């Protein structure tokens, strides 16, 4: 399966208000009134703009008969829709429409006004509101100091465990991802924070590829100030990279075999005579990136890291820390700030002196300590990485010593 990314360690559920379905509500109006109300209140204020007036103001009374609401809306707006659309299409040419503010003042959409460039973007957004949301699907710990936001949004896209407890909350949570999340800190780094809808000015990019607004993690745009976590290339920041979006089951809608295309190496057979079965050998002529899996002891969900983004072991070690720090801290149940103890866990990854050690499996299937061979050789032979508890290594050493002895004997 493509997008299974189960992270039951993410504590966001604790910080999420429960969407208990009110007992008395008949099912006909269970488009979750709580959620409905919140959504309607927060989203639909139409600011000025006659040509966009076709959008009917929402009923803010969620308990009004749903049927009526729809009817009203339909009746009211059908004739104006056509008109408005015509006008709108004509107006398209030049001016940026500042008319329709779908994002009201109590906005859940995070807008970085500086980033949105001169005059572009939605007018009327008051970003000094304290309910500015950064919606990130980064893992906890991403982007310094925004654990909660990230944690909150590290959604139940992943967690079946969470589903068992709160099916309703989950769907609620999912909805909320896209409209609001808990209000998170605005933080000083507005233009660098990952907004769900963070827009980057094209002018800023100055190159062919406009900044990609990121859906999750904001890693691409955080590159400048934070070390790159996850699959995003470290040094190649700016507009040409984007953060790895947090995996959603079944998204993007492509077949599974396509998801692994760029990092898998298919086995071609070398032809032999007639009936002989063809031998396989792998080779990887993929020049683009070298994504290898990396798992950490005690963390159920693995990550992938692009080795081409680094040119030495130190940077790799730092990246590994960035990848797992949040998860480890979450597991240790200290999501508030980056736990010093968790950080400490990643000291000494390469030399065996720390709590964890970085090892890898090479193309011959052997497990090796990271750091022994020159970097280039490492990159060309590594197949996957593991972060092991150093205390477990002693046991492994004994095992492998045993094997070596066997080999020597043979």
């Amino acid at each position: 399966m493509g997008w299974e990314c189960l992270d039951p360690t993410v504590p966001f559920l604790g910080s999420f208000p429960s969407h208990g379905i009110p007992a008395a509500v008949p099912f006909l109006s269970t488009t979750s009134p709580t959620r409905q109300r919140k959504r309607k209140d927060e989203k639909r204020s139409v600011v000025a703009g006659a040509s966009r007036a076709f959008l009917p103001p929402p009923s803010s009374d969620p308990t009004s008969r749903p049927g009526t609401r729809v009817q009203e809306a339909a009746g009211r707006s059908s004739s104006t829709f056509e008109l408005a659309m015509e006008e709108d299409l004509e107006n398209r040419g030049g001016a940026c429409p500042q008319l329709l503010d779908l994002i009201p003042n109590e906005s859940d959409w995070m807008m970085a006004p500086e980033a949105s460039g001169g005059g572009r973007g939605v007018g009327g957004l008051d970003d000094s509101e304290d309910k500015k949301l950064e919606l990130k699907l980064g893992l906890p710990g991403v982007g310094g100091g925004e654990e909660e936001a990230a944690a909150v949004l590290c959604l139940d896209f992943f967690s079946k465990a969470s589903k068992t407890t709160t099916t309703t909350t989950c769907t609620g949570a999912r909805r909320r991802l896209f409209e609001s999340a808990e209000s998170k800190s605005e933080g000083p780094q507005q233009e660098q924070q990952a907004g769900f809808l963070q827009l980057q000015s094209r002018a800023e990019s100055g190159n062919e590829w406009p900044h990609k607004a990121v859906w999750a993690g904001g890693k691409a745009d955080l590159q400048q100030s934070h070390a790159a976590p996850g699959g995003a290339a470290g040094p190649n920041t700016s507009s040409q990279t984007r953060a790895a979006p947090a995996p959603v089951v079944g998204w993007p809608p492509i077949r599974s075999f396509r998801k692994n295309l760029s990092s898998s190496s298919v086995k071609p057979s070398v032809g032999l005579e007639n009936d002989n079965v063809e031998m396989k050998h792998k080779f990887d002529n993929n020049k683009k990136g070298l994504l290898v899996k990396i798992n950490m002891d005690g963390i159920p969900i693995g990550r992938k890291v692009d080795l081409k983004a680094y040119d030495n072991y130190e940077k790799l070690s730092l990246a590994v820390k960035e990848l797992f720090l949040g998860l480890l801290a979450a597991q240790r149940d200290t999501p508030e700030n980056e736990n010093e103890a968790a950080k400490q866990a990643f000291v000494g990854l390469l030399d065996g002196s720390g709590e964890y050690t970085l090892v890898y499996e090479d193309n011959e299937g052997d497990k090796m300590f990271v750091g022994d061979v020159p970097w280039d050789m490492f990159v060309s032979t590594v197949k996957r990485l593991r972060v092991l508890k150093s205390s477990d290594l002693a046991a492994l050493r004994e095992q492998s010593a045993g094997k070596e002895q066997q080999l020597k004997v043979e």
Partner: protein
Amino acid sequence: MTYFPEEVVEHIFDFVGSHRDRNTVSTVCKAWYQVERLSRRTVFVGNCYAIGPERVMARFPGIKSLSVKGKPHFADFNLVPYDWGGFALPWIVAAARLCPGLEELRLKRMVVTDDGLELLARSFPNFKSLVLISCEGFSTDGLATIATYCRGLRELDLQENEVEDHGCQWLSFFPDSCTSLVSLNFGCLKGEVNGGALERLVARCPNLRSLKLSPAVSVESLNKILARASHLVDLGTGSFAVDHRTDVYHMLMNSFPKFKSLRNLSGFWDASPCCLRAVYPVCTSLTVLNLSYAPAIQGDDLIKIICLCFKLQKLWVLDSIGDKGLAVVASTCKELQELRVFPCDIYGAGTTSVTEEGLLAVSSGCPKLNSLLYFCYQMTNAALITIAKNCPHFTRFRLCILDPGKPDPVTDQPLDEGFGAIVRSCKNLRRLSLSGRLTDQVFLYIGMYAERLEMLSIAFAGDSDKGMIYVLNGCKNLRKLEIRDCPFGDIALLKNVAKYETMRSLWMSSCDITLGGCKALAAKMPRLNVEIINENEETYEFEENLSDLHKLEKIYVYRTVAGPRNDAPDFVWTL
């Protein structure tokens, strides 16, 4: 017309080709029903659970070709649990008993077993063509039985199936007397291939026109094959991994110019840019080119090859082609009808990809464009409106903006207007997939304008029940509606229940549908199967204890004359 003898009526019906027309014709009167059913040669069953196989075979005893589809489309993206259903065996069994003259079987998204394949192979003496698309449940052993028993097999076409590898010998099971193959496609097989057997098979099939090799077939093997199959029209190259400094590569270079008939090229799983040069000689006559399995080919190399393909009608590439490459497509491929741009690197470490600029260029340069599947990271309303103006002939328009719910980056608006322009301008639009930030507005437009729309895929869109209601109330030709992660609830579900009987199916996952809503639907519409797919192990044991307010993760609703199915697994409840 009823005064004509049956033979005459039947002869007239020979000219009535399409399924829909034949279905209509059969409802005119009993006589016509009879004539039609006995003269029908092809049957297409869009949902294998809509009708029982015996009923189909009994009604149409003379069929030569049967197509059946199983799982809902979202199964392609792992949203449907593995053992949900869609079993092919009942169909094969029924056909074996009632329609032994069957010559062609096409199955899509079904579970096919080796036993089923064996039964198939043994039951139909005239069997000519097996096409399996996105199926699973069988192994190379099953293929071996097909090879063994299907004398006179003309076509074996395996597209994107999950096939268990039990060894490479299945190709050797084609007897020496098998010389009838016209089309052989095993590109989806992952295991080793017996090169010798393959080469001999190709050599003895002079009518072979379409050959698609799996990634395990080496270039050495390919060379030998190509030497014997110069009449190929359609080639899937296999791995194509070769060092351009070797003799093997030079042989390849010399092979391709001999292919005067080659029109369709795909494969290239491990191709590196240098060895792509070998195919340049055939590019000028290509009509179909699929480079979407070749991540190592970068934008510039793609451009070099596309520059030559001025007759191209269908192009599948990865987004490494970039906007720049798409501009080259626009200026070169004036005959282009179908374009698919797949994401190369969804884990985010990629560099180039495509934006609205690329699509704009293609829309303006390729006037015949009518089918699109486009993965990109952003799209603007302005671009979509222009694209709609440039290409009013779209029949399939599938746009996937990889960040769900992302608005127009320039204006921060939802993409309602852009998609609205598409449905308004493209009067023949039959299939539409939406993405990006979308409000109920876009559904209003779709309901109003998309009259010919048959299939609609929605994800992470809409604000309220209204959205879904607009669609259900409009779109008179809607057949398949699939929705995920949208705020549509019971009100929308129940607003227009009669609509579902005019449609093939409705899929909703991660929406706001409750158990109570589904119960109400099932109660009102007895000829629908309302299936609840509940993968939550804790709750499905306590079905009777679940309140009506319990939100459902996945529902699949489809019209049927066969009643609730008897092969549903534990986690599927049919209300």
